Every structure is written in C-alpha cells, then in structure tokens.
C-alpha cells in the first residue's frame, strides 16, 4: 500500500503554534471559551494544543474537556460492527460558552455533525467553531467547514489519511495511504 508523508514533526509543531495564535486572536482572554477534544483521535491533537498553551501562554486559563459522540452517530446499525464508545469528560455546563471542537481530520463532516448534536447535552453554547489538523477538502457529505485548519489536502475517496502521534513528540506525522 503506497504511503505519502504529508507532514512531519517540525512542520506539525509550526502548525500547532500557528493554530494557537489564531485561537488567541479570536478568543482573546478565553474567559468564555471552552476547548473540546473529540474522541477518539481528536484527543491527541487536543492534548498537543493544550501543551502549546501551557508552554507558551501559561497566563491563559483555558477551560477544556473531552467529548465522545458515539451515541449520536448516524451509522448505528449500518454495519456488522458495534460502535464502541469512549469516555467523555465535561464536568461543567457549556451554556453560553464559545466552543472550539478539536479533531484531527475533517473528511465527510458526519462526525462533526454528531459532535455538534452531542455537545448540546451539556447546554446551549453561544457558538461552535471547529479546529482540525487536516482538512480533506471537496469530500464533504454534509455542509461543515473548519474555522481553523492545519493543512488542506486533496485525496481520492478510498485514501486513508492517518495522523500518528509519537509519545516523545519527535516522530509525529501525517500520511496518506492509497
């Protein structure tokens, strides 16, 4: 299976810093903002973003949580596989908060739709934004777009875009499997 590497650690780190700057530009002191990592794979990117905030902007008090949207997915009973849920960690209400959902890859948009429904269980947010590392453009099945993205790429339908996070943060990479 041919593999094409799109991003490596150095570039990913630059992108993370840039995404954090863009967030600060729009959310200023983060008083009303909540960052939400989407289970399962968005949580890795979410953790990296939180790390950048802690290292470069320790004065900012960032409220954050993790959301699992399995029970809101639209493909339940559509395959042989049972959809396995993960844990959610949101111990506060999001009523009137500005939410930033964080996921690694934006593809069909269906996960984001499910996540937007799931987040309503914690209150009615003031607004919802989306941050992704990779935007597979022209592949949407639902009208969803990212407000912040690391990179936009063109892919074929059968391609798999994978984001691998290295524990030591040295060999992070994004690649396409065709």
């Amino acid at each position, binding site marked *: 299976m041919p593999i094409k590497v799109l991003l490596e650690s150095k570039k990913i780190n630059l992108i993370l810093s840039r995404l954090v700057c863009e967030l600060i530009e729009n959310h200023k002191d983060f008083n009303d903002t909540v960052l939400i990592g989407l289970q399962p794979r968005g949580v890795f990117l979410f953790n990296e973003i939180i790390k950048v905030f802690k290292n470069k902007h320790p004065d900012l008090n960032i409220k954050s949580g993790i959301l*699992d949207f*399995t*029970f*809101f997915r639209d493909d*339940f*009973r*559509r395959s042989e*596989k*049972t*959809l*396995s*849920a*993960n*844990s*959610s960690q*949101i111990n506060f*209400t999001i009523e009137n908060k500005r939410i930033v959902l964080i996921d690694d890859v934006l593809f069909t948009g269906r996960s984001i739709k499910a996540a937007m*429904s*799931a987040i*309503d*269980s*914690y*209150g009615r947010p003031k607004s919802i934004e989306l941050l992704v590392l990779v935007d597979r453009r022209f592949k949407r099945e639902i009208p969803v777009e990212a407000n912040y993205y690391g990179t936009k790429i063109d892919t074929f339908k059968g391609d798999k875009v994978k984001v691998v996070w290295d524990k030591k943060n040295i060999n992070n990479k994004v690649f396409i499997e065709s």
Partner: protein
Amino acid sequence: MNKLSVDHLHGIKFLNKSDISLIFDTASNFKEVINRPIKKVPTLRDITIANLFFENSTRTKISFELAQKRLGADVVNFSGSNSSLNKGESLIDTVNNILAMKVDMIVLRHPNPGSSILLSKHTNSCIINAGDGSHEHPTQALLDSFSIFEKIGDLKGKNILIVGDILHSRVALSNFYILNLLGANIKVSCPLSLVPRDIDKLNVSIEPNIEKALKWCDAVNILRVQRERMLKSYFPDNREYSMLFGLDLNKINHVKKDILILHPGPINRGVEITSDVVESDNSIILDQVENGVAIRMAIMYLLASKLNFTIDKS
C-alpha cells in the same frame, strides 16, 4: 471484542467474560450520559421496545423504561394482569400480536422459568429477560457486580457473600454465574432449608454463621425472603430469621472492617436488613439503582446494534 456473543439476554449463564467487560465498559459511558444536564441520546430512535411484565415489578420496570427513553427508543408497556391472557390467549400468541405492530425488542418478566428462551424460539424479536420465575435475573446481577466493581475494582479473588432466600432467588443464581465468570469467591449465609440442592457445583460454599461470613467478605448482597414463592414454611418466623440472618449495625460493627452492602430491593426493613444499615455509609443500594439504568442502557444498546437496519422499500 466489541460485540456481544449472544443475540438475546436470557441469562448470565449464556454470557462469557468478554461480554461482561464489554457491558461494564459501555455502562460506564452511559453512566456519564445520564449525569449530563440533558440525559438523552438518540441512538435507538428507530427502535420500538415492548416491556411485557407478567409479574409485579416496580424498580426493574421503571429502570428499563427510563433506560429506553434515555436511549431515544419508542416504548410500549404491557402488564399481564389486565391483558387478553385473562381471556385465554397464550403467551406466544399475545407476543406475536404485539410483534405484528413492528416491535424490535422485548423485555420480558414472567413467573415461569425459561419463558424468555421459549419466546425467542417462537418470535423473531430480540428478547431481554427481566426475571423468569426463580431462574435468572441477568440485568440485576450485572448491575450488582458493576456496583461492586465501581467501588473496589476487579472482582477477581474478592469475597462476596449473599445472605437470604437463596432457594427462590433468581438474583442469587444470576449472581453466582457472574461472580464465577469474574473470578470472585462466593459464600451464602441463610437457613439451610433455603439452600438449593447442588449449590456446591456452582463453586458456592455455605456459612450458616453470618458473623463469621461477614468477617470473610468484601461485599454482602442481602436478599429478601420471597414469601410469595414459598409453598411451605422454611423457617419458624420472621423474628427468628431476623435475629439470626438479618443484617443490623451490631453485626456490622462487630466485623470491624468496611464491607459494601447491597440489596436488590424491595427491602423489608427490620426483616433481612435494618434501616440504619440501609442508610449507612457502606450501603451502595442507591448506587445500584443508578447503575441499573446505565447497565440496562448498555444491554439494549449492544443488543440493538446486532439488529440489522432495513428500510422498507415498498
């Protein structure tokens, strides 16, 4: 393994260890869901579930119904006492009539052991046993073990005591099966007249002295005396039973260690357990009730995921 090995839940006897851990993992996720400000998910919005209760039930029925509503399912309730069964209709005919109304899943409580298995052989619907006579009550055993697991972790090697009317209890039998699957050590304490035959074949030992048994255990599950199932007298009177096997603070304090106290309900205060024990810090009876909803949501979610989705193209 992210799929149940069974298509119906007739009893714990038919489950394996990975089924149990899948159910526990899923129940943990649902427990988080039911503690959200908005406690409902739309997962089963295209599923219709019939609750067929041919025997009295309060908490199991409410717990199932709440779990179904939290999952977004459509629910119909049926109670045996005011049905066509009184007009001579058989169980299978009654159920087939209900299924003709496009019901996907049935939760069945029935006084006859094996009724859920019988029904599954004559219908195409997914069946969940909510108690069949003195046979099994699988969701109760699942929530009992889940409640203990939440407090003290893995049950492997833990000592679990069951006190009460073991002979007539479906909760006891289901608990024996699940505790064996999870590797716990099991003892019962009750009048010898209430011990079923061949109990030793289920790896259960008997300790008629409740104080000795309490010293041994990490958790104790208290069962009520099921007078309605007794065709003869098994012990002289409630007062004597209560003195010998009723759980009171004196017996608990005498043990000098923390023991989790469970009771599946309904509680006969002053007979098998005193009020001060029910309300003590070690009692996890209300945790059991909350966990009951999460466990039942998990069961219905996992079984529903095995129902094929079909669109009627006509």
